[in-house]
């Protein structure tokens, strides 16, 4: 029955408002994503910030090239090791008329930092000890220890500025339903579970965007999302699975926007304290046994880039493509017998559907490992279960995981959590690497940080705590009527969407 229903649902159409309509006055567009939003309070978000990013603003923002540029702050500088000063933009108001000022910044950060509020995204800014409103347009951010990442942290949604008076009056729950920000758009309508509509903020301080009104629509099934794009019911779609690429490319109404290496760096992690994976030779052998290029080319059909780098090319700290382990089953067999496993061993590989074609990739890896004598059983774990067993270390000694710098575009987010011993997602522990990781977090010298990341990269490759696989690309479908490209930071700034020439 379920089979039949799933197949039938490919044909289902979502017939609603005609997309990309509108006259000279303004553009109305529909953006289809796999899910609807849950709440719209940036301080208490448990989901992608694509929608709230357009209602609220941060002190620092990223331009079209994804470099940092002034947002609500006009400038920022480091005064001493633990103090950063932000100069704020003047004359900005929230859409309810409340003025934007230093007090609003302090209020917005304080409520996320307050442990009593239990903000899910608190960890992004726990390095902040205190925010001081020096005068109306000057804010001092005091950190617990030197933190070179403060400007980046003040680019992320937990630091988006909310109006203190209104937020305080209505309380957190109501605020998440009726948000008020300074951003280029404001909430018009939210049909819970299916769509949310934003409309242009007429009193916005910056340039007036071309897009007048945007509906974010939830279409969970990828095939339906793609046909919505092609037949014009949606203008931009996110999360295009690689097998639908050609369908969009071949259509006369839409184009594909590729963000090369915009997704997670996927790897097979080893529990390096569990036999036989505590032996570095075994870990190196398994790296030699897997034909990553073949997997990327044939199974993923080029929807990812094979890499040994821990850090994405657009992230701070990227040091080019390091040399890794060549595909060499002969060498793998030799290393295994050197390690004392001439006949291989048996192991279980956990995988989860968070990553492209996860079961296919895992089965191909299992088959290739079988060629060198390692019998691997593939265990496809249900997503909710995997979410709880991986951070508690209950997964199998071999497990699939992907990690990225998730919008910070800095190496710290890309590697700290999965390499530092003692971190919930890390199954690796090397005192030298730990020391380097700790230093990278406290050094304000950007050149020194760059060196540290290059050093970490070198040591981790030698230590092989994982099978180095690939970094996924991400794909967007965009109507030919629009001029917009997918971004590495995963955000969807509506103000940057233009009419196609």
């Amino acid at each position, binding site marked *: 029955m379920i*089979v039949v229903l*799933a*197949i039938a649902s490919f044909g289902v159409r979502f017939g609603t408002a005609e997309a990309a309509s509108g006259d000279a006055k303004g553009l109305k567009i529909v953006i289809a994503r796999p899910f609807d939003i849950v709440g719209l309070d940036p301080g208490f978000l448990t989901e992608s910030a694509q929608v709230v990013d357009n209602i609220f603003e941060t002190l620092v923002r990223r331009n079209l090239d994804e470099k940092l540029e002034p947002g609500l702050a006009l400038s920022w500088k480091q005064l001493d090791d633990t103090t950063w000063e932000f100069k704020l933009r003047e004359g900005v108001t929230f859409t309810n008329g409340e003025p934007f000022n230093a007090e609003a910044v302090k209020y917005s950060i304080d409520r996320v930092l307050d442990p009593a509020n239990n903000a899910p995204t608190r960890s992004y800014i726990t390095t902040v000890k205190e925010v001081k409103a020096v005068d109306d347009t000057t804010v001092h951010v005091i950190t617990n220890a030197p933190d070179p990442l403060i400007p980046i942290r003040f680019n992320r949604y937990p630091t988006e500025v909310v109006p203190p008076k209104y937020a305080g009056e209505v309380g957190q729950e109501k605020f998440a339903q009726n948000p008020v920000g300074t951003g280029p758009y404001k909430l018009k309508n939210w049909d819970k579970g299916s769509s949310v509509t934003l409309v242009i903020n007429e009193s916005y301080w910056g340039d007036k965007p071309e897009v007048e009104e945007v509906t974010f629509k939830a279409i969970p099934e990828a095939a339906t999302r793609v046909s919505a794009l092609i037949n014009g019911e949606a203008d931009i779609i996110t999360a295009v699975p690689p097998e639908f690429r050609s369908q969009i490319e071949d259509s006369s109404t839409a184009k594909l926007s590729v963000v090369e290496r915009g997704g997670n760096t996927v790897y097979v992690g080893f529990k390096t304290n569990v036999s036989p994976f505590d032996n570095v030779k075994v870990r190196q052998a398994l790296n030699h046994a897997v034909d990553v290029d073949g997997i990327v080319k*044939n199974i993923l059909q080029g929807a990812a880039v094979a890499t040994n780098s821990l850090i994405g090319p657009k992230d701070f700290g990227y040091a080019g493509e390091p040399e890794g382990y060549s595909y060499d089953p002969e060498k793998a067999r030799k290393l295994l017998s050197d390690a004392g496993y001439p006949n291989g061993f048996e192991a279980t590989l956990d995988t989860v559907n968070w990553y492209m074609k996860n079961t296919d990739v895992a*089965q*191909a890896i299992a088959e290739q490992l079988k060629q060198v004598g390692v019998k691997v*059983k*593939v*265990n*496809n774990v249900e997503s909710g279960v995997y979410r709880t067993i991986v951070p508690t270390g209950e997964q199998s000694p071999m497990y699939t995981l992907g990690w990225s710098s998730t919008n910070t575009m800095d190496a710290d987010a890309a590697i700290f959590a999965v390499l530092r011993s003692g971190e919930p997602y890390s199954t690796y522990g090397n005192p030298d690497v730990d020391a380097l990781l700790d230093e990278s977090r406290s050094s304000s010298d950007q050149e020194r940080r760059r060196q540290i990341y290059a050093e970490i990269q070198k040591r981790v490759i030698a230590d092989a705590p994982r099978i180095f696989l690939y970094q996924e690309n991400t794909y967007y479908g965009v109507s030919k009527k629009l001029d917009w490209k997918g971004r590495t930071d995963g955000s969807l700034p509506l103000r940057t969407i233009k009419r196609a020439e």
Partner: protein
Amino acid sequence: MKRTRVKNKRKGLISGGCLITVLVLTLFAPVFTSHDPYAQNLENILAPPMTASESDGGIALLGTDQLGRDVLSRLLYGGRTSLLVGVVSAILCGMIGSALGVVAGYYRRVAGVIIMRLADINLSVPTMLMAIMIVAVLGSTLFNTILVLTVTGWVSFARVVRSETLSLRERNFVEAARAMGVSNFRVITRHILPNLSHTVITLTTLQIARMILLSASLSFLGLGIDVSSPSWGGMINDGRNYIMTAPWLSAIPGAAIAFTLVGINIFSDWLHENLG
């Protein structure tokens, strides 16, 4: 049990023939295909049916899947798993469900109430939800799949058998036996169970069909047996991503399931006509 002339011979022959074909093809899979159902060939993926398979010069009769594995051999070997799961769990359901049903019908005061309320509780949880819960907690293995199907499937037997037992219990030959001082155990085994056999057999064949479908649904959701072992539901699931470009991946195992289920249903219908 009374013996009469076999009714509707053609129906029985055709449906029985279909089932025997499926059984022979899957049980003797190695005879019909020389390919290893696990062997991958990443250079030759998603080959359409009837194309020459580049690696060994042979012909991939039903094409290859997304890892270059031969679809025909996966279909035949996968049928083994699907049928095994269906038959074993249906028989287990039949044994457990009938035993509980007879007890509930015969001792209708205490045991009957307890068992039937248990059955009600079991029915109030959607089958699929319960299956997902059990597999999520215990992990996905062949044994767990059978366990899940048995836990969710015994109720239908228990309810039918109980109501049959309730009416048998009031029949004269049972009352006579009890009046003559025959023990309860003997009454159940000698006088009630034999009269239930045709019901149980018909139900079991129907249940096999249901179990095959349910196990396919579980595999489809990625909750069946482990991902690399072939099974019909798993093959449909694998093919789902390629429904636009390689529709045979899902269509072939789908057709196999449909063929088998229709065969079983017609056969059990025929069985019912002749036994009842």
